[in-house]
């Protein structure tokens, strides 16, 4: 995989971990850039491509994210759609107890698939 294990830009930090089953991209801090996709887009695309090639699941973990602007959501939704096309299993993990996360990420359930390929999971 052509990804390092840590990336950071301004107030946002992305940590990439890998186990036998999945690649996990953990989001920490705040995503408030004018165009966050410049930073997050290539990392997410690379992780998705790697998962497509290896058959691993892509886990996007937002539990430690404090805040994100609306421009952050767009590339995430695009990666989900791309994952559907590339038959990559994707799980979005968020913190249910954070009200803004519950509202924001639960809306992504519109992308969930019945076969579990795309899952949106809120943790307490």
């Amino acid at each position, binding site marked *: 995989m052509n990804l390092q294990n840590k990336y950071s830009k301004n*107030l946002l930090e992305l940590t990439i971990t890998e186990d036998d089953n999945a690649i996990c991209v953990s989001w920490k801090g*705040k995503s*408030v*850039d*004018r*165009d966050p*996709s*410049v930073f997050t*887009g290539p990392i997410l*695309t690379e992780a998705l491509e790697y998962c497509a090639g290896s058959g691993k699941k892509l886990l996007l973990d937002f539990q430690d994210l404090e*805040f994100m*602007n*609306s*421009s952050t*959501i*767009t*590339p995430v*939704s*695009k990666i*989900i*759609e*791309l994952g559907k096309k590339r038959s990559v299993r994707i799980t979005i993990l968020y913190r249910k107890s*954070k*009200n*803004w996360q519950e*509202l*924001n990420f639960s*809306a*992504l359930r*519109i*992308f969930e698939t019945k076969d579990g390929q795309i899952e949106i999971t809120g943790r307490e």
Partner: protein
Amino acid sequence: MKDMLQDTIKPEWDQIDKVREECSKFLTDHSLPGDAVDALSMVVHELLENAIKYGNYEKSESRITFTLEINKKDVTVEVVNPIHGDDTPHFKMLDKTIQWIRGYQNPFEAYAEKLKEVSIRPIKDMESRLGLVRIAYEGQSILDFYVRDDDCISVSAVYHLH
């Protein structure tokens, strides 16, 4: 303690998060519930982003004014910024978007619709297109705007306290 927070900022991107933090503290200090604090500070953030993106800052002294006012039954956020006098397409688009959101009985439906729309756009398309509809859904606020005589636009969002 005053129930209104008003300030003027330079149109610089880094200011936005500072203002959001300031608003969050102000609302918390006024004992608003956590979900209202989250919603309203997000609304402030999104409105300021739009003000910087679409405002006219050709004059170096141009500024953005934001107001956060706590009333008995609601909280109003207002952002005022200078505009290009001939920016009719932008106003039309803003008006169209607000009317489109109002056309949905439940703002979640509008948000879901827009989310589906942006998700199939090319990955390199950098437009977010979610800010206003996020204010309506996640921010649970009613949007409005008007163009003032002094070549400024005022965009407001009203959040009803439960």
